[in-house]
C-alpha cells in the first residue's frame, strides 16, 4: 500500500536525544509521554502564566518565556530556539497552534541545526495559504469549493476565512450581503492579531455540512493514510466532539476520501503527520477540500485508538528519517470530547479560575489527555481547552456511552466547563443515530442536566456539617439545635435559599429525607430514591457531584460590609480579559446602551455598555489592562430626570 518515495535518501538519518516542545499544556504533556516511553529527554517552555501547569513539572528541563501573551511567549521563535540551544535540545516539536504551521519558524529551527518534527517548510507554506492550497488541490484533482469572485444574493450564506487561520479563528458566517464588508474587516483584524497575516477569503457556506478529515503521514516509504475522522460537532467553528471512523459514510465515499487525502499529501511531497480536511455534504454525498493542516491535530487520539498507533512516535520516526510500519486495519470506534473552560449557556464565554478539583476517571477504554490538574490556574490568555477525553469501544454507541459516563463521573470544580453539554450530546439519540453536522450544537438548546432539588440541599447540609466540624465550643451539639423553635435555618445561594431544621433527630428538609450528612457527603432520599452527593467547598463556591449531575453553587455571604458594596451604576467586567478600547472619557454623557469600553477575552470582543443614561464618573482601566471578572471597570452615574 505504500508508494516508495522517490527521493527517500534525502530524508536524513538522525537520532533525537532531547526534544523541546514549543508548546504548552495538553499537547506538551502528550508529546512528553511518548518521549518518555521512547527514552527521549524532554524540554518544556512556559510563559509566566503557565509556570505551575503539570507539563512543566513533567519535563526534564523547563525554560521560562517571560510574559503572558502568546506574542511574548509561545510565538517568540527566537526565544524558543535560544531555549533549545541553552538546554542542549537537538529537536523541536511545535505541537499544534502557535508556531506549528509557521514556515519561518520551521526554517529557523532547521537553520539552527536542530531537527524539526514536522513537514518541510515549503509544505507548510504551500498549505499555509488557503487560497494557494485550494489551487494546488484543484490541480491535483481533489474537489474544492469555488469561491465566487463577486458574491450575489444567491451565493449566501458565505463563509469568511483567514487564509493563515486554523481552529476557527477569523472565521465568520455571512448571511446578508450588507454584512459581508464589515465581517471581512473584522475577520481581517482578528486574523492579523492572531496570525500576523490579515489575508482572508470567502467561500460558500454549507449549512449542515459535515467536517471529515483524513489523517496522513508522509514517510520515507510513501504516504500512509490512517483513516478518517469526523469532526462535525462544532461550536463557533471550533471542534467539540470528534470520532473515528466517520459514522454512516458510504464505503465508496470513504475510499474516495482516503484517496483524495493521499493525493493531497503526495501533491506536495508531504512528510510527517498531516490532516487533509474536507467538507462533506451528506445530502449530495459529495466532499470538498477545505484545507490541509500540516501538523498534529488536536483530535489525533481517536485515530491512535482505532489504529493502534502513536502518531507522535510516527512523527518522531519520520523526523529521524526512519521507516514506519503500521497495521492497515481499523479496530472499533473512538470518540473524543474536548473539555473546554467555557460556559455554553452564556455564548461559550471563556471561563477562568482555579481548578479546585480536576479528576477524570480513566481506564476501561477511556483515555484522558489533560493539560491541567487539580490546583491548576486556568487563564483566558490561551485556548480554553482543559483536556481531551477519548473513549474506545468496539462500536460507536458503546464508545459514546463510555465517554458520557467518564465525563459525568468526572470531578471538575472551580471553573465552569462544557461538560454537561458534552454528556448531553453523547447521550442524544440524534447523535447516537449518526446525525452529525456542523450545525448540530447550534440547533439544540444548551442542555444541562435536569435541575436537581437535592443538590442545593446537600450543599446546605454539608456546609452546616462543615461549620459544626469547625466549631471551637459545643462541638457535638446538633447543628441548628433550638429548645424553642421559631424559624428554619437558612442557607442562601445565589440561585436560592435552602431552609432546613436541625435538632436531635438530625436534619429535616421539606419533602426530602436526610439519610446522613457529613462535611463531604450527604445522602438524601427523594421520592423513595436514595442519592449520595459529594460536596466540596472552596471559598463561597460549593460543588456538588452526584449521579444526577454536577451543580456549582455560590453562597451569598450572610453579611456584606457596606464599604465593600459595589457602587450603583458600576460596570463590571463580565469575564476576565484585556481592555482593548475605552470609548468614552471621564465626565462624558452617555445614553443607556452606549459602549463605554471594549474587552477582549480569548477570541472575542465584548462591549461593555452603559446600563443607564448618565455621566461617566469613573474609569478605572486603560487599554491593555488585564481585568478580573467582576472588577469595576467604570461607573456611570444616572442622570437626574429633567422635569
Amino acid at each position, binding site marked *: 500500500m505504500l508508494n516508495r518515495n522517490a527521493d527517500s535518501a534525502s530524508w536524513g538519518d538522525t537520532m533525537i536525544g532531547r526534544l523541546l516542545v514549543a508548546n504548552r499544556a495538553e499537547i506538551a504533556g502528550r508529546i512528553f509521554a511518548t518521549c518518555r516511553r521512547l527514552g527521549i529527554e524532554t524540554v518544556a517552555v512556559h510563559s509566566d502564566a503557565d509556570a505551575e501547569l503539570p507539563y512543566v513539572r513533567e519535563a526534564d528541563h523547563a525554560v521560562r518565556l517571560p510574559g503572558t501573551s502568546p506574542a511574548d511567549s509561545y510565538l517568540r521563535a527566537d526565544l524558543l530556539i535560544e531555549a533549545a540551544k541553552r538546554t542542549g535540545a537537538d529537536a523541536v516539536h511545535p505541537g499544534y497552534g502557535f508556531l506549528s504551521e509557521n514556515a519561518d519558524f520551521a526554517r529557523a529551527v532547521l537553520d539552527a541545526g536542530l531537527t524539526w518534527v514536522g513537514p518541510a517548510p515549503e509544505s507548510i507554506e504551500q498549505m499555509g495559504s488557503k487560497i494557494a492550497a485550494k489551487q494546488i488541490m484543484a490541480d491535483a484533482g481533489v474537489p474544492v469549493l469555488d469561491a465566487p469572485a463577486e458574491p450575489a444574493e444567491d451565493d449566501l450564506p458565505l463563509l469568511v476565512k483567514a487564509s493563515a487561520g486554523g481552529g476557527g479563528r477569523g472565521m465568520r458566517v455571512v448571511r446578508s450581503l450588507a454584512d459581508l464588508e464589515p465581517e471581512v474587516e473584522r475577520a481581517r483584524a482578528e486574523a492579523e492579531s492572531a496570525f500576523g497575516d490579515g489575508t482572508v477569503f470567502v467561500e460558500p457556506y454549507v449549512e449542515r455540512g459535515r467536517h471529515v478529515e483524513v489523517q496522513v503521514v508522509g514517510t520515507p516509504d510513501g504516504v500512509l493514510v490512517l483513516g478518517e475522522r469526523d469532526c462535525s460537532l462544532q461550536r463557533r467553528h471550533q471542534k467539540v466532539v470528534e470520532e473515528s471512523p466517520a459514522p454512516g459514510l458510504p464505503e465508496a465515499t470513504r475510499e474516495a476520501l482516503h484517496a483524495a487525502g493521499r493525493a493531497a499529501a503526495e501533491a506536495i511531497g508531504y512528510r510527517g503527520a498531516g490532516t487533509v480536511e474536507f467538507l462533506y455534504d451528506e445530502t449530495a454525498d459529495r466532499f470538498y477540500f477545505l484545507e490541509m493542516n500540516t501538523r498534529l491535530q488536536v483530535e489525533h487520539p481517536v485515530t491512535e485508538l482505532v489504529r493502534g498507533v502513536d502518531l507522535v512516535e510516527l512523527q518522531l520516526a519520520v523526523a529521524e528519517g526512519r521507516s514506519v510500519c503500521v497495521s492497515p486495519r481499523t479496530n472499533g470506534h473512538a470518540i473524543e470530547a474536548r473539555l473546554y473552560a467555557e460556559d455554553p449557556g452564556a455564548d461559550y464565554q471563556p471561563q477562568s479560575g482555579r481548578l479546585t478539583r480536576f479528576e477524570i476517571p480513566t481506564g476501561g477504554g477511556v483515555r484522558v489527555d489533560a493539560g491541567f490538574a487539580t490546583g491548576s490556574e486556568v487563564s483566558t490568555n490561551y485556548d480554553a481547552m482543559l483536556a481531551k477525553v477519548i473513549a474506545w469501544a468496539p462500536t460507536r454507541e458503546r464508545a459514546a456511552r463510555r465517554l458520557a459516563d467518564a465525563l459525568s463521573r468526572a470531578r471538575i470544580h472551580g471553573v465552569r466547563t462544557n461538560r454537561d453539554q458534552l454528556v448531553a450530546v453523547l447521550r442524544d439519540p440524534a447523535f447516537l443515530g449518526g446525525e452529525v453536522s456542523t450545525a448540530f450544537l447550534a440547533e439544540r438548546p444548551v442542555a444541562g442536566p435536569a435541575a436537581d432539588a437535592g443538590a442545593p440541599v446537600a450543599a446546605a447540609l454539608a456546609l452546616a456539617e462543615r*461549620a459544626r466540624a469547625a*466549631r*471551637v*465550643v459545643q462541638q457535638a451539639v446538633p447543628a441548628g*439545635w433550638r429548645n424553642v423553635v*421559631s424559624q428554619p435555618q437558612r442557607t442562601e445561594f445565589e440561585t436560592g435559599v435552602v431552609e432546613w431544621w436541625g435538632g*436531635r433527630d438530625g436534619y429535616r428538609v421539606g419533602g426530602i429525607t436526610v439519610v446522613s450528612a457529613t462535611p463531604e457527603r450527604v445522602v438524601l432520599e427523594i421520592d423513595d430514591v436514595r442519592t449520595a452527593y459529594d460536596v466540596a467547598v472552596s471559598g463561597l463556591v460549593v460543588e456538588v457531584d452526584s449521579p444526577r449531575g454536577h451543580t456549582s453553587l455560590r453562597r451569598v455571604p450572610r453579611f456584606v*460590609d*457596606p464599604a465593600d458594596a459595589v457602587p450603583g451604576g458600576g460596570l463590571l467586567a463580565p469575564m476576565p480579559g484585556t481592555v482593548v478600547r475605552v470609548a468614552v472619557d471621564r465626565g462624558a454623557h452617555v445614553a443607556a446602551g452606549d459602549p463605554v469600553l471594549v474587552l477582549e477575552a480569548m477570541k472575542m470582543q465584548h462591549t461593555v455598555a452603559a446600563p443607564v443614561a448618565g455621566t461617566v464618573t469613573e474609569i478605572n482601566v486603560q487599554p491593555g489592562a488585564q481585568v478580573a471578572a467582576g472588577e469595576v471597570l467604570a461607573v456611570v452615574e444616572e442622570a437626574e430626570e429633567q422635569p
Partner: protein
Amino acid sequence: MTTTNREALLEKLADLDAEQAKAVAGGGERSVARHHQRGKLLPRERIELLIDEGSAFLELSPLAGWGSDFTVGASVVTGIGVIEGVECMITANDPSVKGGASNPWTTKKVFRAAQIAEENGLPTVSLVESGGADLPTQKEIFIPGGKLFRDLTRSSADKRPTIALVFGNSTAGGAYVPGMSDYTVMVREKAKVFLGGPPLVKMATGEESDDESLGGAEMHARTSGLADYLAEDELDALRIGRRIVARLNWRKAIPPPAPGSWAEPDADVEDLLDLIPGDLKEPFDPREVIARICDGVSEGNAVAFDEFKPLYGPSLVTGWARLHGRPIGILANAQGVLFSEEAQKAAQFVQLANQSDTPLLFLHNTTGYMVGAEYEQGGIIKHGAMMINAISNSTVPHLTVIMGASYGAGNYGMNGRAYDPRFLFTWPSAKSAVMGPAQLAGVLEIVAQASAESKGETFDAEGFAAIKTMVEQQVEEQSLPHFLSGMLYDDGVIDPRDTRTVLAICLSVIETRPYSGTPGYGVFRP
C-alpha cells in the same frame, strides 16, 4: 402501658410547644407584620443572624410571665448563643410586644440572664429596642429595675464584655443600656437614645428639639460619642456586633474535650418518653435516665456509670459519669423518699465531688424526707441538714433537672432553685410544691378539724370538702411546670430527649471560668 406513658408525655410536650409558640408569636400577627414592614426584624430573627451559622441557641425562661396578664415570654428573649466561637448571654427586646416595654416579668427574666452571665463569666450582647417600662406596673419595675444598669457595669468591671446593639427606641432609663455597655452600635435612622424626648425637654427647659438631635444614631456616632459604631441597617449592626465579639480575644478557662473522644449514650434517648410514668406515684429507675443522657462506653470511658455506694441508701443513686466527655457526679432519686442513709450518702458524695472538682448533676424525683417517729428519732432532720449543708456550701458547678416530683425539703436537699444551681431545667412531667395537693388538702382538713374540736365546735366535713377540692386544684395548678417556669423558678421546660444537649451546652458554658471544690462547710452534726 408504655404507650400510655409516651402518650401522656407527648401530650404535655404538645402543650409546651403551644405555650412556647405564644412567646414566639410575640405581639401577634398584625404587630409582627407592622414591625416587618418597617424593615425591622423580630428578636429571634436578629439572634439567628447574630449567632454562628448552625450553632445552638439555648433560650432561657421562654415561659416567663406564663399565667400572668402579660404575653408569655415577657417581651424579651434571653439565651446563650455562640458568636464567633464565643458563648455569650444574649438578651433581645421584643418590640412587637407593646413596643418592647418591660413589665415585672421582663425585669425578672433579664436579672436571671444577668445572674447566669455573672456566675458563668459570659459576655453579654443586648439587642435593644424597648419603649421603656410598662407604666401601670411601674411600681414593681422602677425601684428594682436599677439593678439592670448596675449589673452591666459590674459585668464590665468583672472583665465580662458588654455589647449593646441598638435597633430602635432606648430612651429614658433604657438609654443607660448602651450607656453602661463597653461597646455600642446604633442603627442609622432607627436607633433613638435619649434621657428625655422632645415633649419632656420642652416641659423641663422650654427648648425646642427633635428626636435626631436628642438621640439619633448619627448624632451619637459623630457628636456625643455614645455610639462607637454607626450601622447602616439591622444586618450591618449584627455584622458589627459579631466583629466586636471576634476581637474580644476571648479565652475559656477550661478547653473543651477533644470532639470524638466520647460516645453517644448506650441506650436510645427516645425511650425516655416511655420511662416516665404519667402518675408520679409510680417510681422509675433513674439509671435508665442516666444511660440515656450520659456518654456511652468508649475508649477512655470503660464504664458509662460508676455507681457510688450502691448498697447503702438505695433510694438515692449516686455515681460518676461523663457528658460530652466531661466528668460529672450525679445524684438521682430512685424511690422518691429520702431517708437518713440517703441524706448521709448525698452529703458524702457532694464532698467527694468537691474534693475532685467535679460538677454535679441533680435529677429530681422526690417526695421529700421521710416522716414518722422512727425517722425523727433516727435523726432525719440532722441528716437532712447535713445534706443541705454540703450542697449549700459546695462550690463545684451544680446542674439540676426536675424530672418528676420535687416536694418539700427534698426540693432543697436536691439543690432546688433556692440553692442557686448554675442551671435548672424542668421536664413537662414534673411537679413541685411544699407537698402533694392531696396531702396538703388532707393536712388542712386535719388541722381544721382539730381547731374546730378544740373550740368545741362540730367540724363541717361536707362544707370543708368544697374548700379541700379548691385547695387541691390550686396546689395542683401551681405545682405544674408551666406555672413554675412562668414564675422564673426554672430556666425553662425542656423535652426530656433534649436533656443531654441542654446539659452539654451548660457544661460547656460553665467552663468559661475556672471552678474548684469548696475548702469548707458549715458545721456538720454527725
